[in-house]
């Protein structure tokens, strides 16, 4: 009797302490979540404030006269003459007419640097499309040079504009353009349709997006069937002995191997032995397949294990063969889990740079790839290359590319969650 009373007294005496501990425990949980969210917010605001500028680009309006004498082009349909035509000349002349009081070789060179070197190509394209323009004039909006772009975007900054390499004269010209409304920011379409470039105003993400797409395509086509088949065999058919144990240990081991090792393996096998060319998505896909296979096999095995044995027993009961049990019953039920695992594996592969370093995909590649055998680079590599470039305008491009990559990762991970919610069966 007294013992019992003592115990309940003891419990009552300790209750306050226990409640306090409970509260503390929850508080720590909330604190760590708040901390993580704060870190995320800081990271995102930094990336977004730095990168948002890259979605707009500065354009300058110039009046172009397609003067045959300056172009040294008298018949626009003559391909040979066209290729040699002096399109830089008409740009120079147009700028000179806009700023007639600019004298001296040095200043004239500075003046030419207001517009991007792309302007000459734009003018050439115009004339190619409409040969009748020869001898006439029109006004065109062309890309501004990256120094001008950075300067113009920072004009309203609190700490004053970023002058960088622009001279006072150039700043005066920009002011004149601003006053006349001949300079403006437009949506940066180029960023989404072009490949890499050393001129920041011409650098785009499309080449890297396509490269990532082709690389992941190869990875998916190879690693998903191989991974699923391996998992299915190991779970449903393989005898349990020390050989399968050994294989299991090795698969788990491979999943934890640093990714650079797979790059070295790719270099030794695919390039040195099979003599494949460097820098192509096919090669990148093969290397990333090696890297993602363990992840896919492990998650597929877990998904197969989660299918209740009663399903298999029922199928056997009505006379299904082991293959029929596996393909008709187990596989469809395990598929959502397998897909989720594969998507997460793919997302991991999308963010990988280290293994690609060894096989030449960390490279400057301008042309956008159109097949898995064209040289290409991938999104994270593009971010790395831009972050290492000296030109100031690449800072915002880097952040913008990070935003694009994050966007793709968010889409893939949401898809994985959605698939799981949508297809998963509960028992």
């Amino acid at each position, binding site marked *: 009797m007294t013992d019992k009373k003592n115990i309940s007294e003891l419990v009552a005496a300790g209750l306050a302490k226990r409640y306090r501990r409970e509260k503390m425990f929850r508080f720590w949980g909330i604190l760590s979540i708040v901390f993580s969210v704060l870190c995320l917010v800081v990271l995102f605001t930094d990336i977004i404030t730095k990168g948002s500028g890259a979605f707009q680009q500065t354009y300058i309006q110039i009046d172009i006269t397609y003067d045959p004498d300056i172009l040294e082009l008298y018949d626009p349909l003559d391909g040979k003459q066209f290729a040699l035509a002096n399109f830089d000349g008409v740009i120079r002349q147009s700028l000179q007419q806009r700023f007639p009081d600019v004298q001296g070789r040095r200043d004239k*060179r500075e003046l030419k640097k207001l517009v991007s*070197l792309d302007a000459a*190509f734009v003018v050439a394209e115009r004339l190619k499309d409409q040969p009748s323009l020869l001898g006439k004039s029109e006004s065109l909006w062309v890309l501004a040079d990256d120094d001008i772009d950075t300067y113009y975007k920072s004009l309203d900054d609190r700490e004053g504009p*970023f*002058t*960088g*390499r622009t001279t006072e004269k150039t700043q005066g010209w920009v002011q004149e353009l601003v006053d006349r409304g001949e300079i403006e920011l437009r949506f940066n379409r180029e960023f989404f349709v072009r490949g890499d*470039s*050393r*001129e920041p105003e011409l650098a785009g993400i499309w080449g890297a997006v396509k490269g990532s797409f082709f690389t992941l395509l190869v990875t998916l*086509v*190879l690693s998903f*069937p*191989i991974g*699923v*088949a391996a998992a*299915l065999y190991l779970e449903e058919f393989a005898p349990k002995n020390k050989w399968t144990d050994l294989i299991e240990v090795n698969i788990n081991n491979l999943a934890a191997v640093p990714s650079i090792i797979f790059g070295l393996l790719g270099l030794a096998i*695919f*390039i040195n032995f*099979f*003599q*494949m*060319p*460097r*820098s*192509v998505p*096919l090669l990148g896909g*093969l290397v990333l397949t090696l890297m993602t296979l363990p992840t896919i096999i492990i998650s597929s095995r877990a998904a197969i294990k989660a299918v209740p044995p009663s399903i298999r027993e029922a199928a056997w009961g009505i006379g299904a063969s082991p293959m029929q049990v596996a*393909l008709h019953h187990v*596989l469809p039920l395990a598929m959502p889990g397998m897909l989720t695992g594969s998507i997460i594996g793919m997302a991991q592969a999308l963010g990988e740079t280290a293994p690609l370093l060894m096989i*030449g995909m*960390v*490279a*400057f*590649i*301008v*042309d956008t790839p159109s097949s*898995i*055998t064209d*040289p290409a680079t991938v999104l994270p590599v593009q971010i790395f290359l831009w*972050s*290492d*470039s*000296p*030109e*100031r305008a690449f*800072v915002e491009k880097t952040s913008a590319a990070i935003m694009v990559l994050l966007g793709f990762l968010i889409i893939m991970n949401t898809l994985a969650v959605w698939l799981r919610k949508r297809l998963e069966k509960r028992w």
Partner: protein
Amino acid sequence: MIKQNVIKAALAGTVLATAMAANARDYISIVGSSTVYPFSTVVAERLGRTAGVPTPTVESTGTGGGMKLFCDGVGSSTADITNASRRIKASEFEMCKSNGVTEIIEVLVGYDGIVLANSNKSDRINLSRKDIFLALAKQVPNPDGSETLVDNPYKTWKDLNPALPAANIEVLGPPPTSGTRDAFAELALEGGCKSFGFIKAMKKTDKNQYKTICHTVREDGAYVEAGENDNLIVQKLEKNPDSFGVFGFSFLDQNSDKVQGSMIEGFEPTFESIADKSYSVSRPLYFYVKKAHVGVVPGIQEYINEFTSNKAWGDEGYLSEKGMIPLAADVRQDIGGSARNLQVMNGEDL
């Protein structure tokens, strides 16, 4: 079903791989120095836009790594051109030869300066190479004047030269794997090291020890390895006005609003002072072409022509705009001429 797909996919993969190995490459593959990379890529891009050949791919592998890939042999899986921020070594030339790469075209394209810079917020200082050596070497001559070496005792710049500020020595620079670091050690540290007679005498008696003394950087925290990312160094200099950073001239040129280059022996790093060699810490930039690939991989001749054209490497060419220091006009003429005629190097003077 699934198994059939697996077999099909595996087969398709193998067939593609073999088909590709047989195919010749139709774009130029360039590897090599990260210092030449910014210039090489600009030339490659212009070539792709104007010459009607696919744009070359350019990889930044470092000078040594590039030589290894370049000298690996002849054939479409090896590189056509390698960039270098120093001349090819005799050992590398031999390695090339033994792998069948016997005909190499050497092109000197220009110079790059290495700068020691600090934030614009503090004063510009004037250093000598001797100051740099005393500030950064692991072992320095005993300050008492005897001809012995002691572990670097200097904590502040003032300790080693009364004319310098009293700030702590803190220099951010590239790690030993970097070509910039090699060049910095060779040009700045060794340059200062040689000014001590007894160390210079060592070069004849014990070359290895001479090199160790002159090239080893102190490890007590005064020199901070900041990785290969020069942008990061610039950011850190902005935050800490007392520290200095080591990087290439093109970064200084692009970030002149944030950092300033220290004077070395009285000369500020500028285009002019590096070109006429009055600024002492500068190095040559090269690229090397595999002659066996010219005519096999399309565009190599065009690439050489573009790189050695006046609009590219001239005094006011687009490469000088990217921060490369051009050669003198008559040197350009000589080198350009023999490069365009694909004259191979004999390697005797290496």
